[in-house]
């Protein structure tokens, strides 16, 4: 299951650990496909008809569905088992990372300094203050989050996230687990052929798996990633060097970077905004506006907004905000991104949104075909980790 971690920071899991990971990945498939399907059947055939009979109308939104279904046994088991599989994801990979912790640190330093395959850079800041919205919780139940450090040149939390993500995504993220940004950047390049970015920034880059695909699309561009987690940016750089990709990583807060005004052509993020409180998202949009050159583009891969999803899908996607230690997720999905980008200085009319089929699941031709279309269509597969997932992204032009 951790085969997707195929670079020089790979850790050796024992056979039994690999079996535990294999089980967790299978269990996630069962919970997210089978159990969630059973829950939907119980909703459609029992709970919703009873609600309509009692109220003379259908439930109006996700929270009303949540309130109605949460006493059902199927909801309780779906939820308890999702929480347990989530914790088991991280626990299944941590022993190997723990055993190799110091060696990983040394290997990361060698990779980052060697530069025999790539010439990227990494900078961390010993006085950096991790924002409270990151330091105060173990986001998506990952013990230690993105930032905790225990030893010199610590990369362990990067390794926990990388290996855990491989188990978590049970193959959905494709080679190097880069499918989301691979698909989104390929879609972007095909849909906006006139865009010739020279400098690209990835906010909240974690492992750099959302950063490197941009270098593949635009080989002449300078690509940067920022993250608040020191272990993440060190790991991201060593990973990039191992793959032979020039990329530059910085320990910075996406709201307050050290880059100059109007220095980037694309400011991107992937799976980032939903982990950020709305007031800080406003700050991120303002910072993106400051950093972009005139004509530059801000792009965010994200979960689809609640205005785009059916009430049931809204309930289903917002589950994580209540139970998976991702408390800011719902406010983000409820927000009006168009209004927010306008507040940040972008023209409201410059807003755009798209759905990119996963290149890993649907193939290159399906992605290219979708890239000829404008707008984003409602589809229950969008943003939903399970069979047939599709990727939603939105943005604005300065």
């Amino acid at each position, binding site marked *: 299951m951790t085969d997707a971690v195929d670079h020089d920071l790979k850790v050796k899991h024992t*056979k039994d650990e690999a*079996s535990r990971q294999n089980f967790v990945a299978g269990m996630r498939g*069962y919970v997210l496909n089978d159990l969630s399907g059973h829950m939907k059947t119980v909703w459609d055939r029992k709970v919703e008809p009873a609600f309509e009979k009692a109220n003379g109308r259908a439930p109006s939104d996700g929270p009303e569905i949540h309130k109605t279904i949460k006493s059902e046994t199927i*909801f309780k088991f779906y939820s308890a088992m999702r929480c347990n599989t989530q914790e088991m994801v991280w626990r299944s990979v941590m022993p190997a990372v723990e055993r190799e912790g110091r060696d990983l640190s040394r290997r990361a330093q060698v990779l980052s300094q060697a530069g025999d395959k790539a010439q990227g850079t990494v900078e961390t800041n010993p006085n950096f203050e991790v924002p409270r919205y990151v330091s105060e919780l173990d986001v998506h139940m990952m013990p230690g989050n993105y930032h905790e450090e225990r030893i010199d040149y610590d990369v362990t939390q990067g390794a926990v996230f990388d290996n855990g993500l491989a188990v978590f995504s049970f193959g959905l993220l494709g080679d190097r687990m880069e499918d989301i940004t691979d698909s989104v950047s390929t879609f972007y390049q095909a849909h906006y052929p006139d865009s010739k970015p020279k400098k690209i920034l990835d906010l909240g880059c974690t492992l750099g798996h959302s950063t490197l695909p941009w270098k593949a699309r635009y080989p002449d561009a300078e690509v940067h990633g920022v993250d608040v987690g020191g272990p993440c940016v060190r790991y991201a750089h060593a990973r990039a060097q191992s793959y032979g990709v020039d990329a530059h990583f910085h320990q910075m807060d996406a709201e307050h970077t050290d880059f100059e005004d109007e220095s980037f052509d694309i400011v991107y993020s992937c799976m980032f905004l939903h982990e950020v409180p709305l007031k800080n998202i406003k700050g991120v949009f303002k910072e993106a506006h400051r950093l972009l050159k005139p004509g530059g583009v801000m792009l965010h891969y994200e979960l689809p907004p609640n205005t785009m999803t059916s009430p049931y899908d809204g309930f289903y996607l917002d589950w994580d905000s209540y139970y998976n230690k991702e408390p800011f997720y719902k406010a983000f999905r409820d927000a009006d991104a168009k209004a927010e980008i306008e507040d940040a200085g972008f023209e409201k009319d410059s807003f755009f949104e798209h759905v990119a089929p996963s290149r890993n699941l649907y193939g290159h031709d399906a992605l290219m075909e979708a890239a000829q279309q404008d707008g984003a269509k409602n589809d229950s597969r969008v943003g939903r980790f399970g069979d047939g997932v599709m990727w939603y992204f939105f943005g604005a032009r300065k």
Partner: protein
Amino acid sequence: MPDDSANAESTPLRYSVKGKRMRFFDAQGVDELVAICMGMAQEMWVIKERQAALESVAAEKGVVLPDDIEGHAFSPDQRAALDAEKQGFIDRIFFTLREEAESLAAEPEEEPPAPSMP
């Protein structure tokens, strides 16, 4: 927990999630029982996978050594068969969780009432 946390190379990690634990069941202890059942299912799978490896190695060599099992890799076909078996394994253990959905989907007739409780 790690097998060799005393190793000088190791960096002890925190395995528990900080903050409030999610609870879904009204009766005390049921959330913990779900976690224990899942842990048991996981460990049972570890045994099944190791046993499959053992059988495979034994068939190949006629002799079984611990290193043979640790270093053994299934062929892609064996892996696919095992993955399919794993989904059946999970489905059997958690069968009760699809019972209600299946029963509702079958649009059952009204059942004759059971005798009143004594």
